């Protein structure tokens, strides 16, 4: 028997990605379309003029698989080509901890992380007015 077993199965195990920025970034949220522009290197600056620096994980990680499917809407090879063409605007983190630390410490940094890994040293952006785990949130997938 599992404790409180009756509650199980009430929600999905789908992965949800949080869009995180450093604490000094006052951007509360953006549309999915604008977020896509940021992550496809089509928008290089935040509203306050600071340069955008993407912090990403290896494309093989589950988080990036979800991002490639939902945000980039690309095949993995296309995504790798996009990264190769914009090496100077992206930092590749080797772990989730490294990603969180990079975003926390680099002004203008933005990253994607499993929502259950966020800490209080980063801000989480709304996408289309919704935070992760709210109904209809954009960045989720199995």
């Amino acid at each position, binding site marked *: 028997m599992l404790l409180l077993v009756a509650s199980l199965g*009430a929600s999905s195990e789908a992965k949800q990605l949080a869009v995180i920025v450093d604490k000094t970034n006052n951007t509360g949220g953006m549309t999915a379309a604008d977020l896509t522009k940021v992550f496809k290197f089509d928008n290089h600056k935040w509203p306050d003029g600071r340069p955008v620096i993407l912090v990403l994980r290896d494309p093989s990680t589950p988080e990036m698989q979800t991002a490639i499917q939902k945000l980039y809407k690309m095949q993995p090879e296309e995504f790798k080509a996009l990264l190769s063409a914009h090496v100077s605007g992206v930092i590749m983190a080797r772990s989730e901890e490294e990603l969180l630390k990079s975003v926390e410490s680099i002004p203008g940094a933005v990253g994607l992380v499993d929502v259950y890994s966020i800490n209080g040293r980063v801000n989480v952006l709304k996408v289309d007015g919704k935070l992760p785990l709210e109904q209809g949130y954009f960045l989720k997938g199995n």
Partner: protein
Amino acid sequence: MGSNKLRILIPAVFAFSALALAHDVPTGMHISTKSPQAHVAFEKGLAKMEMLHIQDGLESFRAAVQADPQFALGHIVLMFFSQDPTEQVVERDKALAARASANPEEALIIDWLANASQARYIPAIQAMNEALSKFPRDKHLHWLAGWWLLVDHNQSQHAVVMFEKVMQIDPKFADAYNEAAYCYARMGNFDNAFANIKHYTELVPNEPNPQDTFAEISRMAGRFEDALTHYRMSLRIDPSFHESQLGLGDTYALMGQQDRAREEYAKAIAVGSPVQKVLWSLQSAATYVREGNLAGADKAFNAVAVQAHEKDFVNLEAEAFRSMSYYQLDGTASFNLLNKAEAVLKEGHKVPQSLLNQELASVLRTRVERGLHDNNKDVAAAAFKQLQALAEANGADGLIGTALHGAAGAMALGEGNFAEAVNHFEEDDSNAISMRSLITAYEKNGQAGNANRLAAKLAALNVPLIEQAVVVPEFRKMRAAMAAKSNAALDPRAKYH
């Protein structure tokens, strides 16, 4: 006037006592209550919960906050474990009111659980992770986090990390192995699940629950004979562990031995509480559906509805009618049953509104699915609109949320919006009906890999629920037929054709 020695000694004794109260368990929570009785009762509550003696644990937590009404941690932990919605709100508010007197770890736990209970998940997760990072040797904190992730958020992969951390801190913490076993089973990793259960049974050989867990995981893995053996071992250790008696019924039902299942269910029902009698009778009634005896199923479900009505469990009465609607061959008969279910939910009764809303959401979602199945799109659209209104008025968490997603997925699939259907069904991916539709949505959306993985998962789904009963046996037959058709040489029946 006392001596100087005494004046030095008294503060020293107090300082030592305070230190002892705050840190008496080096791998446990930092507990700040000034009341020794509250402290002892709280520790007792945790110990009871560790052994899954839930009611005893709740009583101890209640005793702790009674002894020290300013004990904020006691209030928030009681809120977390309580299943009474009224008590949850009262205890959360008391925890927040007393938060100022909490120590730093307690304050983070309050921020985490109080925010979570109000669906403010971002600050909740931030507080939880901060607590975990600042108190990496607190086994109870990691254990609570594991439970929250598993039970409230269905996150087996994240939860198992917490339970394994508990094992590192305290290798004798029995329930960590129990919970980890369930996590691994839900992830489909039965080797790790059984390894954890084995350890769990060794740690607490005289408790029935390890055998019950062993049985349940065996059943999930399709090892039905092993499941029967361990349920019986559980009952030998404690004949009053009625969940194991129920498990025998469930296992025989899934094995296809419906007469034997009903015999075992009858024994469980005879000793169950009033609400258990009704709940378990619903499972017994489903055995007739499994054997294709629909008239027998109607008779049994109607009997459960009468029983539930007499005891004023109108949500369960409605569930009986909804269950009947699933297998009706005639659409009108199905809708009539759903109408009866909806009507009883609106009668005067004592059942909490939250439970009535949950059942109403399930009824409406079933009407959407049946409407679409019968090509009655107007009925489906009207029911969907009602369900959306219910979710807007009451919040779309938990069962109402999954019902809404299941219905929205069905609507999107019916309209040919396959990507949208996938998005919705993925939010309800443990319901057999949604799983079957999600496979279709994946296929139509060009996600063949996901469709194949989910089809294998659905075919192996062994849960004693009516949705499984109406979906999985048929799905298995269809897969077997397709496999035989695609490779007739491997079909043993081919030689007779």
